[in-house]
């Protein structure tokens, strides 16, 4: 990767993006063919159901929103040299926390306050889980990958248990959020998005994305996260608290992933139910690997994966929607080729 390239070169980010789209298209054709559908017909149907209508576009935006946040979350840990596979569980716990808090607030809580408190719960839920993994790493030297894999499983089993034990209204969902904790849908602002699940959460996610990237680039603390990733020992020698930055990176990572609940719980459903937003955590890993450090890259990657997910729903009758998980995995690999840690 480091050797001087003399051929006429596209910026690496663009090359990765093009490469990923090509891989997606080829695999998509293959899968559609296996499912007995003419690839071109399936592709046109998928395009029409995603970017062809305002409704479809709204759905793509809705799906892309948690992906952008989990991608941002994964990224901060990666910069610090940590591989946070726990974003999936952190998003789950954040969504659960947001659903419970939004439904338990006094119903007179005024609008922005209810949203802020629910989002706070989502962030704290995700960050708490991330911090556990970070502490295990810093204090006991346990590898973050194995710890977060275990934590994912633990949360996946505990949340249904807690819901069933009376925290939820039924065994699989939380109570309805009070009106002061809901994020308005885009359809309330403009007729064109009628029926789609997109909400102000998308705007929120974009603002968070821009602020976070700016903070990472231009604040001392933000840059320290990157330096720790380059060498924790050197950082300690220079007086940067390496260990502390490591677990903070995990906590921040989880917190941002938890905010993904804004789109699903607060913007769309109005409650948490089991499985809501599942998969967005692993998708976020692909978003981060594909999008790297630029806002355009991250948003583009989130839109690409959001498009895949929505296309999966559109085609579900003939091509099982889980096929899109295979495509997401392919994007993840294609986006990371040639960049293994040395």
């Amino acid at each position, binding site marked *: *990767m480091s050797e001087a390239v003399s051929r006429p070169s596209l910026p690496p980010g663009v090359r990765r993006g093009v490469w990923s789209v090509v891989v997606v298209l080829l695999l998509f054709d293959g*899968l559609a063919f*296996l*499912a007995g559908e003419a690839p071109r017909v399936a592709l046109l149907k998928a395009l029409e159901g995603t970017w062809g209508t305002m409704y479809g576009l709204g759905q793509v935006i809705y799906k892309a929103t948690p992906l952008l946040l989990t991608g941002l979350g994964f990224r901060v840990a990666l910069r610090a040299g940590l*591989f946070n*596979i726990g974003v999936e569980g952190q998003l789950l716990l954040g969504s659960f926390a947001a659903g419970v808090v939004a439904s338990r607030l006094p119903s007179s809580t005024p609008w922005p306050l209810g949203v802020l408190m629910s989002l706070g719960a989502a962030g704290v839920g995700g960050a708490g889980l991330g911090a556990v993994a970070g502490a*295990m790493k810093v204090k*006991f*030297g*346990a*590898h973050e*990958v*194995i*710890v977060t*894999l*275990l*934590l994912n*499983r*633990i949360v996946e*089993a*505990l949340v*249904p*248990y807690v819901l069933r034990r009376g925290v939820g209204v039924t065994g699989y969902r939380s109570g309805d959020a009070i009106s002061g904790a809901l994020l308005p849908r885009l359809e309330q602002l403009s007729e064109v998005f009628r029926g789609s699940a997109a909400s102000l959460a998308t705007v929120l996610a974009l603002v968070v994305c821009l602020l976070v990237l700016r903070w990472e680039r231009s604040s001392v603390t933000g840059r320290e996260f990157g330096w720790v990733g380059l060498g924790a020992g050197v950082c300690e020698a220079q007086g940067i608290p390496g260990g502390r930055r490591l677990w903070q990176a995990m906590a921040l990572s989880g917190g941002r992933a938890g905010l993904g609940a804004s789109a699903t719980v607060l913007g769309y459903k109005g409650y948490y139910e089991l499985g809501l937003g599942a998969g967005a955590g*692993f998708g976020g*890993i*692909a978003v981060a*690997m594909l999008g790297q450090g630029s806002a355009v890259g991250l948003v583009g990657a989130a839109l690409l994966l959001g498009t895949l997910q929505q296309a999966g729903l559109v085609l579900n009758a003939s*091509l*099982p929607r*889980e*096929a*899109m*998980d*295979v495509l*997401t*995995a*392919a994007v*993840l*690999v294609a986006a*990371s*080729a*040639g*960049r*293994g*840690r*040395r």
Partner: protein
Amino acid sequence: MSGQLTTFVAEAIRMAVPYMACGLGAVLTERSGVVNIGLEGALGVSALCAAVGAIATGSGLVGLGAGVSGGAFYCLLHGVLVVRARVDAMVSGIALTMAAYGGGRVALRLLYGSASNSPKVPGLPGLESTSAVLRVVSEPALLVFGVAAGMLVLVLERTRLGLRLRASGDNEAAAEAAGVEVGATRLWASVLSGVACGLGGVHMVFDQRQYDAGMTGGRGFLALAAAILGRHRPGATLLACGGFAALEAAQIAWQDSLKLAPELVRLLPFVATMGLLMRGRSGMALARGRLWR
């Protein structure tokens, strides 16, 4: 033996196979310097291949072959992505696990028109016996795994390939300087680990006589943890795997007399592992997975 104890012993032996298969797979690949968190996916893919092969031909032997080849192929794919295409091992592992989960469901729908499980799989005939333990132990897939596991451990510890494999993981620069082709050795290690995992997948399918989408249930991940707890030594790792299986079997055998909710009991291995990881020392074998060239 009392009824519950018999159930416990039989279930523990039965459950131990997928754990041990993946645990051995983890040892083989990680000792060579390639971390593979996609073993969970390899377990699922080999189970699917075993089911599809056996159903299509009606022959358990074909299913066995298909399952083992599926597992070996999947792990080799990981090896190629990591060693040759220089994809981060963690990225490749998680991607392959995702693809296996998704691909399993796609295959079920396209082949059998079902969202969750395959039709009945013709396995290999075991002993007909009234003793549950005997029935479990005589399951041919278990016997094959037992023999293969012994051979794989011998390969790792007593052969030239095994020596090169361990050298590649311990110090790749030194291994390369001594004339070992580190990249190729790692690919071989991947294949061997895939064979081990594949036998685990085959056993799960033959034992339950069907494939269902979530049947791996995180066992591949726990096996990784077992490898860490066993410090990547085959014996200790297999022992840790047996421990996980015993926990799972105890839950089945004493379900009724336990007052705990089943999902909490199912968490035990995961929580126990977290606790064990806190003893420290567990840090590292995973970090060894640095890339050569």
